[in-house]
């Protein structure tokens, strides 16, 4: 990267400004008042060019999803015809996959796991985040460093002993291992929610304390309601993470009746793809069924996704 060579630039940038500002603001003002028209035509074409470029990229980003949805309504022989509108409309794919695979059961399992995972991780992470944000105690920074440190640890290191714990508890094969870890909070959400709690004015809590609110009330009646947007971010992120997870279902679920929908989709692919005669129409349809709830989630929680992700980056 060329950043190195440019590194000295930023500190020196204010200098030219300092050089211009002593000469009274005139040139700047004239610039602002006299040039807009000229700039605006130039800018307009530039903006339109930008939009065009972005439009092309958008098509590249969105079209695979549209392709998938369209293909799910095509008969087997036409799945790969790359038409936007199916030549032969085959909604029966959905009936077939629904009958051949326990999709309803898988969806039910997934909803159960996902809701439990998202609710528990939101509540537990909020509690921990509040503990770090509001209170002062010895070793706080060390402990919080440890929280962040766990994010660096590859999941592979703890994966096997964690499996052995659930195996020891006789819970391999059940849905519990897919969400129960979330009872104990998750570093990423703790970080996110702590940032939010820190932004709340402290006076608010001191006032409530004087009114006789205890620690638990401060948390549940004041902090939590104020941080609803951040809670929504945690809930939505975990909902997505849990819904789309394949590795844990692969590790913990044995019986087809306990599968989540991603695990089910993998089973469909194995059965109708590699192990069968490539019934692509069934595989595509199952893929769409797996994906659609996430698309819906996105349109419900769009705002929160953008806000949450933008916050993630500000850590950098």
């Amino acid at each position: 990267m060329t950043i190195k060579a440019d590194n000295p630039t930023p500190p020196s940038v204010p200098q030219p400004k300092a050089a211009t500002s002593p000469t009274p603001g005139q040139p700047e003002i004239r610039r602002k008042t006299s040039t807009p028209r000229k700039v605006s035509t130039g800018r307009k074409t530039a903006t339109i060019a930008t939009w065009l470029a972005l439009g092309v990229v958008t098509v590249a980003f969105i079209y695979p999803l549209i392709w998938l949805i369209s293909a799910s309504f095509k008969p087997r022989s036409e799945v790969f015809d790359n038409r936007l509108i199916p030549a032969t409309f085959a909604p029966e794919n959905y009936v077939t996959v629904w009958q051949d695979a326990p999709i309803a059961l898988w969806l039910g399992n997934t909803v159960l796991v996902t809701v439990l995972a998202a609710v528990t991780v939101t509540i537990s992470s909020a509690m921990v985040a509040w503990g770090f944000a509001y209170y002062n105690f010895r070793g706080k920074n060390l402990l919080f460093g440890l929280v962040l440190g766990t994010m660096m640890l590859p999941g592979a290191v703890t994966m096997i002993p964690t499996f052995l714990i659930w195996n020891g508890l006789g819970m391999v094969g059940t849905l519990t291992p897919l969400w129960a870890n979330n009872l104990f909070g998750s570093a990423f959400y703790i970080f996110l929610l702590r940032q939010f709690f820190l932004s709340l004015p402290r006076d608010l809590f001191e006032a409530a304390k004087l009114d006789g609110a205890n620690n638990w009330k401060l948390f549940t009646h004041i902090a939590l309601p104020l941080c609803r947007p951040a809670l929504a971010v945690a809930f939505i992120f975990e909902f997505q993470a849990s819904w789309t997870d394949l590795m844990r279902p692969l590790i913990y679920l044995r019986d087809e009746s306990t599968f989540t929908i991603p695990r089910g989709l993998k089973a469909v692919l194995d059965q109708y793809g590699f192990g069968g005669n490539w019934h692509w129409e069934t595989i595509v349809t199952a893929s769409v069924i797996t994906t659609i709830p996430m698309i819906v989630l996105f349109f419900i929680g769009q705002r929160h996704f953008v806000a949450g992700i933008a916050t993630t980056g500000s850590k950098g």
Partner: protein
Amino acid sequence: MLSTSSKRRTAKQPRAARASTKGDTRAAFLFLSPWIIGFLVFTLWPVGYSAYLSLTDYDVLNNPNFVGLDNYRQMLSDPKVSLALGNTIFYTVFSVPIHIIAALALALLLNRAGRAAGFFRTAFYLPNMTPPVAVGVMVLLLLNGQNGLVNSVLGWFGIQGPDWTTDPNWVKPGLILMSLLTLGGSIIIFLAALRAVPEELEESAKLDGANAWQRTLRIKLPMISGTIFFLTIVNTIAAFQSFTEAYTAFFGSGSSTYGNDAALFYGIYLFQQAFTFLHMGYASALAWLLFVVVLLVTLIQVRLSRRFVYYESAQP
């Protein structure tokens, strides 16, 4: 430890103040308790036990059998380890820079898109919602060598596309190509960082006669170098652990077990060793090698970042 307000109280009623600090610590630890329990049970113990298991032969059914460093020795001579590590490094080395550059370029474009930026941002993020399993299915569909969408589009330009899913040389490039579908998150983070660059900097550079390209290269990029660094690290760690897309598309068991050496990522090999062959000791050793590799790479990146990254707050 005492905050100013409690100090003031100390003067008047020392006993109450002391009690409140003690109470604070107790309350804090009550709030932190979920994380502390989770850390002890699901992080600290697993890390220790995984280290121990890596020195044993363990198949879950029989007790671990201590073998010293045998697993690590075996790793050195296991051709699949070097294969999997090579595949993973190949994937990381190409996918991360492509990911960062593409996301940055699109964010720069978005930053000039004015009112339409919100719409495009949404459009770019949408494919991020596709579950990785479904992305794995899409690898097989869109990258199909004969009539997949990608090769059809290449065909418009007279390019004969490769057999992405069967030609060992093209399997990983295909996976990298599909991984671009998940650029959306990085784009949002970059865009947020770009918007946080103070406008005065650009304005003064403009007055100084810097053109758009110079302003981007010499002001915007250095100002967001922290974000570039953050995303590089996060994406590198993720790339080293990539699993789901490649596993879905190229590994599994239908009526016959199948796999593809070209797509054998380290995470997949580790997973197979642990949960297909129940070589839990060997898999634990593999996990520790992964940990060391990821840690080394991260440390190198952190070191390099000292030269390349500009932190505003670090300036006097």
